[in-house]
């Protein structure tokens, strides 16, 4: 359920960002294009100025869409802190308060019983694991730890190998971008294909590695998740890095191709468009793969299940809805969109539609095909975790995109920034176009007379909040201890 709430939240975020971008960019540019051909140069100038101002706003809009998620993250963190901690009374809680007396229906009852069974089993297994781990001899411990370190390196090596594959694929696809027909299509989508293949294969291999590592179950899950997150988000970074190195001749703006315009103008006359295209291709391919998996894999299994009752006994069973990997897919898609939004204004809209369709198709799949996962993912800590991963993706997108306004020269052939040396220079330009009083006011805010007191004030406020947080933390711990005391005394 937390998965669907998260998905709905992302849909709303995308839609709002699309509306803002549409209001500021697309409508003026459509108006400009339809009207501009008729107007003479005099009014053309004003329109272009307006257009540039709007472009500047849109350039910074996507970077500022994060405050609402931070607020909800704060709420989730608060809940996690208050309820988290000791598992005292775990078994008695499960036994005496675990059964929901209002549970109706045979199917729900069986499910609940399986759930309780699984929870008790997990707890018992964890206990026996701890006992066994404490009973290991020194020699066995050394062997185990060295095995774990070695396997960690192997997993890391696999991930690096995947990155190298993506790097080569992107280079190849950019070089051979002149091909036509089916082969051309495949070559164009080669990076996406490699990424999807990597995202599929590497977690499988990591699961096998995890069997050798023999961590406790909760640690295994966390490690697997971290590896998957690292793989997905950094592979996106790899694509961006390869594109950047090709566009700017690896940062050396005075070599060969890049000398004239400070970017590789012969290969990339309109590099923003190309980057936007790559992001768009990634989104589209991800969406197609999701739908394809749903239709081609899960529906046949469902049909098999219905038609052949004996299939129920086989190992195929029913698909389980694995929450973490699905959420990771969502975060990955969202990061792609954030990266591409600067270059491709329609991308948030496409993503809204994509998530919308995905929401309903996953819902249908969930209710018809899948049995609920027995391993229930705790919802408060999981919301917090999803938002943390989303924040990480946003940080990556910002980090990748923010050098662009400052350093890379906008392409001369197209785009709203074409007459400026960098995208950022539009800010000072439009700044000087504002009225005198506004300029003075903004200068004052930026000057030392204002910023140093502001900085000092924010330090004081921050110290206050830190103190408040520690006081609350202490009182929570104190109350918990009191509760324990009161119940033990009597």
């Amino acid at each position, binding site marked *: 359920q937390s998965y669907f709430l998260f998905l709905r939240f992302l849909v709303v975020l995308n839609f709002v960002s699309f509306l803002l971008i549409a209001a500021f960019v697309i409508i003026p540019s459509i108006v400009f294009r339809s009207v501009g051909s008729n107007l003479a140069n005099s009014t053309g100038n004003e329109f272009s100025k307006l257009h540039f101002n709007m472009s500047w706003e849109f350039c910074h809009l996507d970077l500022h869409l994060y405050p609402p998620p931070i607020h909800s993250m704060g709420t989730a963190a608060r809940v996690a802190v208050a309820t988290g901690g000791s598992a*005292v*009374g*775990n*078994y*008695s*809680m499960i*036994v*005496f*308060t*675990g*059964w*929901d*007396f*209002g*549970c*109706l*229906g*045979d199917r*729900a*009852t*069986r499910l609940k*019983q*399986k759930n*309780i*069974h699984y929870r*008790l*089993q997990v707890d*018992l297994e964890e*206990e026996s694991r701890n006992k066994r781990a404490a009973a290991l001899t020194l020699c066995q411990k050394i062997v185990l730890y060295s095995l774990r370190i070695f396997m960690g390196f192997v997993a890391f090596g696999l991930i690096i190998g995947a990155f190298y594959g993506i790097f080569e694929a992107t280079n190849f696809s950019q070089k051979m971008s002149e091909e036509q027909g089916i082969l051309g299509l495949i070559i164009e989508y080669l990076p996406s294909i490699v990424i999807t293949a990597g995202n599929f294969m590497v977690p499988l291999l990591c699961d096998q590695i995890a069997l050798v590592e023999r961590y406790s179950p909760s640690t295994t899950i966390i490690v697997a998740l971290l590896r998957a997150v690292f793989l997905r988000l950094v592979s996106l970074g790899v694509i961006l890095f390869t594109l950047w190195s090709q566009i700017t001749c690896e940062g050396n703006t005075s070599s060969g191709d890049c000398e004239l315009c400070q970017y590789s103008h012969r290969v990339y006359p309109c590099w923003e468009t190309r980057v936007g295209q790559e992001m768009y291709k990634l989104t589209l391919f991800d969406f197609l793969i999701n739908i394809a998996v749903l239709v081609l894999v899960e529906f046949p299994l469902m049909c098999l299940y219905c038609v052949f009752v004996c299939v129920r006994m086989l190992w195929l069973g029913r698909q389980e809805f694995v929450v973490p990997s699905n959420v990771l897919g969502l975060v990955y898609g969202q990061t792609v969109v954030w990266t591409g939004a600067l270059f491709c204004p329609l991308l948030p809209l496409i993503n809204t539609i994509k998530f919308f369709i995905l929401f309903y198709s996953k819902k249908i799949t969930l209710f018809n095909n899948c049995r609920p996962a027995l391993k229930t993912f705790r919802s408060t800590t999981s919301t917090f975790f999803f938002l943390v991963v989303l924040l990480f993706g946003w940080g990556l997108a910002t980090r990748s995109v923010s050098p662009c306004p400052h350093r890379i020269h906008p392409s001369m052939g197209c785009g709203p920034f074409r007459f400026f040396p960098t995208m950022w220079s539009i800010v000072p330009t439009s700044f000087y176009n504002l009225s005198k009083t506004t300029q003075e006011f903004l200068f004052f805010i930026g000057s030392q007379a204002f910023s140093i007191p502001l900085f000092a004030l924010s330090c004081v406020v921050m110290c206050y909040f830190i103190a408040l947080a520690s006081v609350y933390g202490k009182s929570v711990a104190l109350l918990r201890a009191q*509760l324990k005391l009161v*119940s*033990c005394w*009597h």
Partner: protein
Amino acid sequence: MGNKQTIFTAQQLDAYQISCHSILKLYIFLTFPRLFYRYRDLAPQLVPLDYTNHPDVKLPYELIGSMPELKDNPFRQRIAEVFSEDGEGNMTLDDFLDMFSVLSEMAPRDLKAYYAFKIYDFNNDDFICKSDLEKTLNKLTRNELTEDEVRMVCEKVIDEADLDNDGRLSLEDFQHMIVRAPDFLSTFHIRI
């Protein structure tokens, strides 16, 4: 709270528990028509519409256990036994009303804890001992735990909840544990 000597008989204690809770009287007053017709629907030929002569009508356990709210509950037999006068699950109208009022959302926590304790006490000796726990566990997991696992969980439960160290749970131990459970009120609830 120190140790109090209770000098009521078991029956008096039961009657005291429910009748002194005015909020439950209010609940019964508000929902009486609905509850009465549900009771009557179980066996229209046995239950008269006219109760002015206090007819002695008892519905057998099989009818009570076939109600949709109780049909799939693994503890339905114990619930019926606890609330019935004769202890066999055959319920009069009063028993029926008491049962659904204690299981409603209006019943206070202490009362629910008292009756939950009685439900889990399979041998009616006012203590939840190891065999009671084993039976509870088997009903909770549909007999799917192995014997070792059942034994281990029972030991753990008694370790955690037994405060007077007599190897079994008394009502006080149970109530202290329930105090720490935030969702007891919502799980020990049947909506009718």
